[in-house]
Each structure stands twice: as structure tokens, then as C-alpha cells.
């Protein structure tokens, strides 16, 4: 295949991706996401799986123990 076509096919989407990345960075800065990097550290916790609660325990195989208050689908414990 002609090299010019190669260049076009590879460089055009590459440039598009680079521009998208630059825009994403610009958007992140404008949206204030670069101001406080610790903001999202607790976003992983929910009401059902809150901070401070250990969700799994091999040694508790039949009893829910500390997780008794959680709903039935909130655990990775095993049945035997």
C-alpha cells in the first residue's frame, strides 16, 4: 500500500485521539478535578458496602457475623 495512505490512516486517528486526550485534560482542569486529588478516594463505598466493614472472611463459612446487617448479595462468603 502507498505510504501516504498509511500515514493518513494512522496519523489521522492518532491525532484525533491525541486531541481528545488534550481536551479531556482541559475539561478535567476546568471542571475542578485537578484541585483536590483526594476527593474521590471514598467514592468506592456505598450504603450497602460502607467504609469500615470488611466484606469477606474465609473463617466464617456459615455465619454472616459482622456482616449480618448487609443484604444477601453483599458477601463473598462460601457455603461449605
Amino acid at each position, binding site marked *: 500500500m502507498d505510504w501516504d495512505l498509511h500515514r493518513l490512516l494512522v496519523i489521522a486517528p492518532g491525532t484525533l485521539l491525541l486531541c481528545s486526550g488534550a481536551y479531556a485534560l482541559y475539561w478535567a482542569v476546568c471542571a475542578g478535578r485537578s484541585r483536590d*486529588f483526594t476527593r474521590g478516594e471514598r467514592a468506592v463505598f456505598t450504603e450497602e458496602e460502607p467504609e469500615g466493614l470488611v466484606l469477606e472472611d474465609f473463617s466464617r463459612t456459615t455465619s454472616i457475623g459482622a456482616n449480618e446487617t448487609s443484604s444477601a*448479595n453483599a458477601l463473598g462468603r462460601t457455603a461449605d
Partner: protein
Amino acid sequence: MSPFASLVASVDPRPDTRLPERARLSQIDASLRWPVVLFVVSGAGWLMLGTVLGLVAAVKLVWPDFPGIFFNNLEVLTYGRIVPAGLNALVYGWGNNAVFAVGLWIMARLCGTKVKDLGMLYVAGGVWNTGVLWGVGSILVGVGTPVEWLEMPAGVAPVLAASYALIAVWAILCFRYRQEGPVYVSQWYLLGAFLWFPWVYLMGELMVAWAPARGTVQALAGWWYAQNAFGLWFTPAALAAIYYCLPKVLGRPIRHYYLSALGFVALAMFTPWTGARHLIYGPVPVWIQTVSIAASMALMLPVVVTALNFHTTAWAGARDVWRSPTLRFIVFGALSYTVASTVGAVTALRSVSVTTEFTQFMTGYGAHGFYAFFTMAMFGAIYFMMPRVLEREWPSAILIHAHFWATGLGIGMVLVALYLGGWSQGVAMNDASVPFLALVKAMLPMNVLAIVGGLLVLLGQAAFMLNLLALAGVAAAMELLSLLAKASGVALGEEGA
């Protein structure tokens, strides 16, 4: 409502906001239940097939006539076919299915959105797996390209690309309609991975299969693809899974979380430049080799950041890590990422590469990254995810123990064999006075050790598969029974009326 508006409404992934948060999370998990089962079960099948093929290839290094009298002349079982077939089964069969399942689920949960149009995901999943079957089958019958990681015939790529688009669009939609609030680090990694992979894959296919570049540029394009497919697809997906599962199970936020943004940006910036590290002293311009060496060293920055994040968090809850089935695998994967990436950076140096490149050492490096890091992280995420999406516990703790110990020990043995054997192989290959046959014979004990390790890995995967099939089978049977009960209830109601 206009057709466009009704289409948008039909795929809008936002859950019913009138529901309490707990019910919303269950609704999100339930929305992905059967697609996740499809991806995980088919992925586990590909994983076992890929491992079996890799094992057969390893056995052939010790006993070239394997598997014996009846199959000796079968072309399908020649070394040159089973190695790429196994690799493609692992990469596109297991790896991608695992990322689809875990990535979509984590993205949906963190965004607080559910996946609505299940039919599209089933079709896309089916088409993806059919495409992989076509590709792996073609390699086994001798059709394909000789470029590592892109061996499937060119015709398979549009099938995979189309089904990928139908799957990945859900991750983008979930992010687009996410709930208000800060974006978590796993979301950055997943969004990046889902956007980078199609670009990397299509460019790789274009430069290698559809319109092959000439001369050494093709080798450059091939290694650029292989490095980036792992570094910008599997790596961010596995890191996202670790960033999600580790704090979630421990109930503690990630320590030094503020550094994670630096790790993400550094990974995105430096990975694309590392492809030529496999062509050091090869017939490519020296400046390209030097850039790839520098980028490989710079990649230690995200490695140090993730090491600080993961290991200090795990250390703070070390006792709970050991008690959790999920975290045993997750922490194994996180530690492997640190070690494998360090090995990668060191072996990119010219003085080291001259010994390690084109030896079993690099096979060990590949196994370290794919099996010990990516696969173990995915196992951990799957152990966490499946009970939640199926609302059912894993049937056997013994099988989880067996999976962990067999896989951990097996990978350890494979790595020791390939790293030590590969290094001595490289030293001997650089010594012109050592005859090649003596070198091959000297490798035999290490190859046997790698086979034993591979058998243990396969045993562990069989334990995982058994547990998975039991879990998914019971859940499917219960769902079927409840559907039948509902249907008979409706019929009885109609009769009564």
C-alpha cells in the same frame, strides 16, 4: 415520542432514582447478571483451552514426538500452530471476556447506572466468541499471519471490532450518564482502556494484516501492537479491578490516593512508546530503540505509584487480606504487577536485553504479566463479583483454596524455570563455543519444571471452572424455576378468573 428519543430512552442506563441506594445497587448488579455469566464462563473455557495448548507446546520442547504414535503426523498439533493458537485463546478468549465482564460491572457500579438492553450484549458476546473460535481454529489449520498477538486471519478483525463496539458502548454510556460526584480512579482506567483498545487493535490490524507495512516497519508495528494491547488494555483493566476490590473488601480507602492520578497519566503517556524494546539490536533505527528504553524506564513511575497505593493499603489490613478469597488473588496480582514491571524495565536495558531477548526469559516475562498479574487480578474480581450478580455464594471454599494454591505454586514454578533457564540460555547463546544442541539439552530440567508448574496452573483453573459452573448452574436453575412458577401462577390465576 420521536424514534430517536425513544431509542435514547431505551438505552438510558440511569436506574430508578426513587429507589433507596441499596435497591439501586442490587438493580445494577441484576441488570448485568446473565451477560456477566456469559463472559466469565466463556472466558474461563478459553483460559483452560489456552493453558492446555501452552502445556502441549511446553511438553513438545522436552518430548518433540508428543502426543505419540497416533497423532504424530497431525499438522494441527505442530509447535508452530499450537503456540499462537494458545496465545490467541488466552488473549482474545480469556482476557477480553474477563475485561468485558469485570470492566462493565465495575463501571456500572461506580457510575450508579445499569445496563438496559441485554439482547445487544448477548448477541455481541456470542459474536465475539464466534470470532475468536474462527480465529483460533484458522491458526490451527494453518491460516493466519506470523506476527505475534495478531496471528488471526485478517477477516476475523471486523467481526471482533463490531462486537467490541457493541460491548464497549455500554461502558461509555454508563460513564456518560453517571451519578453526580467525584470520578474514582477505576473509572479513569476503564474509560481509558475501552477507548484505547479499538485504536490500538485497528491500527495493528491495518499495519500488519489489512495493508501490511513493508520491511522492518512491520516488525515495529507488530511489537507496538503487542506492547500496547497489554499495556493499554489488560493492564488498566486489571489495575481498575485492584483499585476497586482492595478498598471495597478491606473497608479502607486506598492509601496515598492523591498519587493515583499521576500513575494513570504516566501509564497513558509512556506505554505507547515501549514497543521497540523487543527489537533492541535489531534492524531498526537506534533512536527508536533508545526512545523505547527510556519509555520503559519511565513506566516505573506508575509502577511505583500503584505499589505505594496497593501495598500500603494491603499492609494496613494484612490479616483481612489473608482471610478474603478475593484479596488473596488481588494482592497476588498487585505484587506481580510491581515485580513483572520491574523485570520489564530492567530487561529493556541494552546490557540486559542482549542476554534475555529471544530466550525463554521473555516467555517467562510474558507469563508473569499475563498469568501472575492480569489473570490473578481478574480471578480476584470475579470471586468478588459473581456472588453479588447472582445473589448466591460460591458453592465450595475448598475449591477456592485449591484454585489459589495450585495457581500460585504453579505460576511460581513456571517463572523460576523460565527466568533461570532463560538467563542461562541467553548466556550460552552469546558464547559461540557452546554448541546449540548442548544448550537445548541444558534447558531440559527447567522445561520439565515449567511443565509441572503448568499442570498445577491447569489444575487450579479446573477447580475454578468447577466452582463457577456449579454457581452459575444453580443460579440458572433457580431462575428457570422461578420463571416457571410465575408462569404457572399466571395460568392458575387466569383459570381462577
